[in-house]
């Protein structure tokens, strides 16, 4: 009984880029005043074409009944747009999707909650907004409240709830909606660890119950744990869809490029243009500044080296890198400004070359991903993690320690060799 639950054919969504200002509504005045100009330019056939971009482009796939599909991609890859189209919040520009079953979407926890209303009132309201009938909510009311553990505060306005209670109730309502197809977007990003585990468990339960689930998350561990297939979106296009979830995640994390040149990133000259810090090269280097060939041995020390053009030095410029394990777990951030201010390395106008030493015997065997970060402190990101940061990968194999006991990969993310002594 594995029919199709969702069939997506050539789905595309085009947005108009709005430069004028941050708001996206218009005022009558602007439109009326702009009318003569638009008519004039249209008449001359030069119509100032509004700049557009495709948030989603020619995406086709099928999800069979009962399948749990993970959707991964960097920010802006079109994941949320896809879910928004499938949950009918916004319309596609092209293509179509056929959906075989009642859809419940969980795009944000607490949709429809109002601070002034009590827990009870909010439960009914939020349930109805998510598409439940009144009788349905009534039937499952006790269950919802028990899951959220807020029995005592049902008649208290939710503005007096702790954020944990609020989240639990909000998620609980959504989790008890009984759709045949569930769309989940990043709800696990909120709440504490215990709450996240509970959410994950509930989603797992839904999935085991034979329901179809589409699951967007940056939590790759969760994706790997829950999903039977994964879909990778890149710049609005479907890059890879496979039952081998690990394969998709790997492609997402490390891209298509192969190990040899992955240790180096080059700027063609047009990317990341800015006067403060335009990165030109990002490389895993040896002590002479030459690119290291991969894999590295655990006993090698290496340098994270950045070359960048500076035309206008900024006093609080922070440059650093983030390093991620294969499953996406962040190991640490390091910035040139981690030391007391007088010791900060100063950048000069022109081509700067900065590097940071990573000691030997720190990282375990495995594949790592490094992102180059830069920010004008407290003002804006120039290179933001997960958004536009250039990345390279790093492979470490062998040379774990000189100990006879640990020749193979050690458990854990790190494999530092720290000195031990007997003090008593």
């Amino acid at each position, binding site marked *: 009984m594995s029919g*199709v639950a969702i069939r997506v054919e050539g789905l595309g969504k085009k947005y108009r880029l709005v430069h004028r200002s941050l708001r996206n*509504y218009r005022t009558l005045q602007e439109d009326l005043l702009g009318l003569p100009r638009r008519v004039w330019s249209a008449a001359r056939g030069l119509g100032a074409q509004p700049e557009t971009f495709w948030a989603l482009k020619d995406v086709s796939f099928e999800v069979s009944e009962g399948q749990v599909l993970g959707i991964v991609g960097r920010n802006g890859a079109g994941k949320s747009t896809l879910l928004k189209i499938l949950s009918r919040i916004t*319309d596609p520009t092209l*293509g179509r999707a056929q*959906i*075989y079953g009642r859809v419940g979407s969980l795009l944000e926890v607490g949709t*429809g909650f109002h601070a002034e209303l009590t827990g009870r*009132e909010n439960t009914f309201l939020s349930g109805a907004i998510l598409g439940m009938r009144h009788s349905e909510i009534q039937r499952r009311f006790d269950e919802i409240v028990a899951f959220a553990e807020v029995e005592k505060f049902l008649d208290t306005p939710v503005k007096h709830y702790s954020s944990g209670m609020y989240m639990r109730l909000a998620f609980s309502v959504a989790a008890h909606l009984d759709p045949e197809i569930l769309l989940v977007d990043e709800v696990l990003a909120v709440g504490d660890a215990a709450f996240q585990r509970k959410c994950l468990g509930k989603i797992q339960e839904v999935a085991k119950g034979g329901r179809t689930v589409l699951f967007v998350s940056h939590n790759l561990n969760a994706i790997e744990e829950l999903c039977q297939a994964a879909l990778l979106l890149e710049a609005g296009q479907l890059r890879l869809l496979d039952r081998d979830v690990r394969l998709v995640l790997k492609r997402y994390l490390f891209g298509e490029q192969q190990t040899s040149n992955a240790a180096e990133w080059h700027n063609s000259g047009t990317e990341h243009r800015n006067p403060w810090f335009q990165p030109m090269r990002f490389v895993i280097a040896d002590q002479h500044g030459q690119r290291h060939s991969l894999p590295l041995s655990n006993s090698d020390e290496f340098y994270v080296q950045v070359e960048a053009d500076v035309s206008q030095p900024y006093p609080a410029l922070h440059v650093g890198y983030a390093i991620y394990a294969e499953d996406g777990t962040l190991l640490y951030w390091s910035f040139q400004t981690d030391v007391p201010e007088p010791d900060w390395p100063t950048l000069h106008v022109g081509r700067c070359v900065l590097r940071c030493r990573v000691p030997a015997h720190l990282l375990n065997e495995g594949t790592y991903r490094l992102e180059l970060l830069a920010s004008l402190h407290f003002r804006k990101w120039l290179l933001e993690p997960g958004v536009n940061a250039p990345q390279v990968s790093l492979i470490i194999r062998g040379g774990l320690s000189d100990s006879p006991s640990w020749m193979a990969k050690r458990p854990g993310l790190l494999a530092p060799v720290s000195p031990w002594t007997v003090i008593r």
Partner: protein
Amino acid sequence: MSELNVVETRPPGVNAESAPRPERPPYVVIQPARGWHLMAWRELWSYRDLLWLLAGRDVKLRYKQTALGLIWVVLQPLVAALIFAVIFGHFGKLPSDGSPYVLFVFAGLMPWNYFAGALQRAGNSLVVDSNLIRRVYFPREILPLASTAAMLIDFAVTLAVFFALMLIYQVPLTWRLLALPAFLLLTTIMALGASLWLSALNVQYRDFMYALPFLLQVWMYASPVVYATSIIPKAWQGLFSLNPAVGFIEGFRWSLLGTGTLDLTMLFAACVVGLLTLVSGAYVFRRIERTFADVL
């Protein structure tokens, strides 16, 4: 601009290039569509619980942190009616077709306040609940509908006050009262039609919400809310009756106070205008609806 066309429970049709299709038809088909669509009544009906909950929320929230609560609903028109009665009836000596001026004004204020309130709340409803629109699907018409329904509850309270006033002034009820639901329906149709227009346009152009209070004030004085139609010079009567609000206000007075005569031509015109507004409003709303989530 393209739109989302949702066709419910309809088979996808024969499609030569398709692989083996499941037996059952899709629950929904999502695709860009062209052209105009009227409201999806069946879908709207399936969301009726949400309508009542949202209307209830509106009423609850409005008077949540107030000491007087629902008394405000009574106080506002009552004080307004008193002021108008003193100024226009007592000082201005305007005719009131034989009824006490307070009752006369109150009978006009009730439908007007309902109409104007619905317009104001419903017109802004999509913007106020933009976070819902951006996150969940439901028929968007629900929001202006719920705002109007919430005003209906206010209306019911003021109607009770009106009957109390009639008791005080010892004005008898007549059989004409039976026609009141029809006039209420007419008012509702007009309010809904205008709300659909207004709320949809307000998403695109926020100007409407600034223009509205001013517009409503002008409109109120252009309608026989605080004065009788009889004071309008004969020459202007024709133009005056083009105002669709005249129809339902006069209808309310006629059925509640039992005075005056009903101008059937004018009433018919009001019905036609009301229905046209509603149908065109529904079309426009549907037309713009698909872009709400992108614009809000």
